[in-house]
């Protein structure tokens, strides 16, 4: 599955966002909810092959809950409050492995962003914190065939782009591409974490569902930031 089907959006630095404010953060979540719904069956099928066929339903349930939580009169003042709410909502609605993992990633990001408007540097730090929290919680290393294999290169690509002064739009695009590549790179891996690890060698040859949904989340970020407001 090519998770980069984000429909246009070149990402040339000139047209998109320089920062992620609360409204853009909400747009990002709306985009995630949409792409997760659109890819629900594909995520489920990936999970059916090496897991328990619920990843699509899990994330759809989670981001539907997120959409509801963000729309119901909730008016966060900072991006951090927004993302913390996203994390809490995922934790309280998804279940499974991905609920706590994605949930704590968003919570960890939220903690870093006590600002109404996050610039690329702040986002880079936040993404790094998100990755760290997934690794701390799930204890997966790179190459274990989990979401970490999409998250790690995505965060690095974002970092590198920001360090090179390329700005949010390019960084987000680079992260999305790296996440997608990372997800596809899980195909030949033998799983060492999560349910797929039970299959031993039989996990080889399948793309990890959590890495795939991670790439969707980054694709949605790239799409959101690239869009002119």
């Amino acid at each position, binding site marked *: 599955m090519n998770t980069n089907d984000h429909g246009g959006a070149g990402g040339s630095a000139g047209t998109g966002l320089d920062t992620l404010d609360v409204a853009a953060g909400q747009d990002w979540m709306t985009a995630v909810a949409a792409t997760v719904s659109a890819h629900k069956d594909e995520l*489920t099928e990936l999970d*059916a*092959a*090496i*897991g*328990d*066929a*619920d990843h*699509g*339903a*899990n994330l759809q*349930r989670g981001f539907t809950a997120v959409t509801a939580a963000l729309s119901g009169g909730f008016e966060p003042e900072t991006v951090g409050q927004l993302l913390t709410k996203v994390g809490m909502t995922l*934790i*309280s*609605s*998804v*279940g*499974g*492995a*991905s*609920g*706590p*993992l994605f949930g704590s990633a968003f919570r960890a990001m939220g903690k870093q962003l006590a600002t109404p408007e996050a610039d690329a540097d702040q986002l880079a730090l936040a993404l790094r914190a998100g990755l760290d929290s997934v690794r701390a*919680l*799930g204890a997966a290393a790179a190459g*274990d065939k989990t979401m970490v294999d999409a998250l790690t290169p995505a965060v690095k690509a974002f970092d590198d782009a920001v360090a090179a002064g390329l700005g949010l739009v390019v960084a987000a695009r680079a992260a999305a591409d790296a996440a997608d590549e990372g997800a596809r790179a899980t195909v030949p891996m033998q799983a*060492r*974490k*999560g*349910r*797929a*690890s*039970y*299959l*031993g060698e*039989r996990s080889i040859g399948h793309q990890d569902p959590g890495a795939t949904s991670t790439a969707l989340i980054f694709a949605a970020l790239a799409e959101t930031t690239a869009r002119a407001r």
Partner: protein
Amino acid sequence: MKKFLNSAESFVADSLAGLAAAHPALRVQAEGPDGPFVARRAATQPGKVALVSGGGYGHEPLHGGFVGVGMLDAACPGEVFTSPVPGQILAAAQAVDGGAGVVFVVKNYTGDVLNFQMAAELAAEDTGVAVETVLVDDDVAVRDSTWTAGRRGTGATVFVEKIAGALAERGESLADVADMGRRVNANSRSFAVALTACTTPANGKPGFLLPEDEMEVGVGIHGEPGRSREKLASAREVAALALDAILAEPLFGAQGERQDGVEVIAMVSGLGATPLSELYILFHEASRLLAERDISIVRSLVGNYVTSLDMAGASFTLCRADDELLELWDAPVNTPALRWGL
């Protein structure tokens, strides 16, 4: 998909409503910020340690069918094959805590482990409920290593819930009840074989396709394929395959030697779509094989106890027993799926 259901979305809620309707001694807290969970209708005796378990739906009667006197105080069902969420677990723990603390019985799956762990953290931070966790990881089909997610929790869960539940009923301490649960887990090993895949309501089609003459060996209870795919074998061969894997564990004595004096509680559980007649055939073969090694089956369960939706297949679980475990096993229990002495 051929199932009795109204919709994939309402599968768990409708099924829990049926459990509630069928068992007036249970109360089912409906879905919502504090649910769902299944608990005994009667409040926990003050001073009695409470047992809370849970996990994805689709393994019935596990766990809701084991709520009742002598076993669990509450069970938290997640969506089908999806672990429950921390808030739900915390709500159940608070509801059934009798002041003596709560033991979480958690099958070793990343999702269950993380969600119960978060619930335990919340309990420690926000409430006065003391929590101990017992991890169940009995499935020898999974090659364990420090680098992996470890073995799965399957059939031993029933033994842990029954025996630790009986100890809790006696008024023992949180630490003792948890230790007993850990001991039962340490004494137990499982192995399962599937003849068909199962179909989750949300997916609507079987997780894999298995030709008429093949079986999946070393499967778990979430519809994932097993360790290997083999030619369909006779009941005798299937039992031998499972027991060989289980008895390779040092727990049951040196391999190949006769094990005079080793006593076990044995369970053959259907995975959902296998009829009792076939489970008895497997149990017969298992009992022959154990007799050949002088291992005595001193208690047994044959039936659907830990299932995987509509998967055709069976799991074998042995728990090495001693007098203390047997006394607790024999203690009265009154749950929808396990009942004696009451």
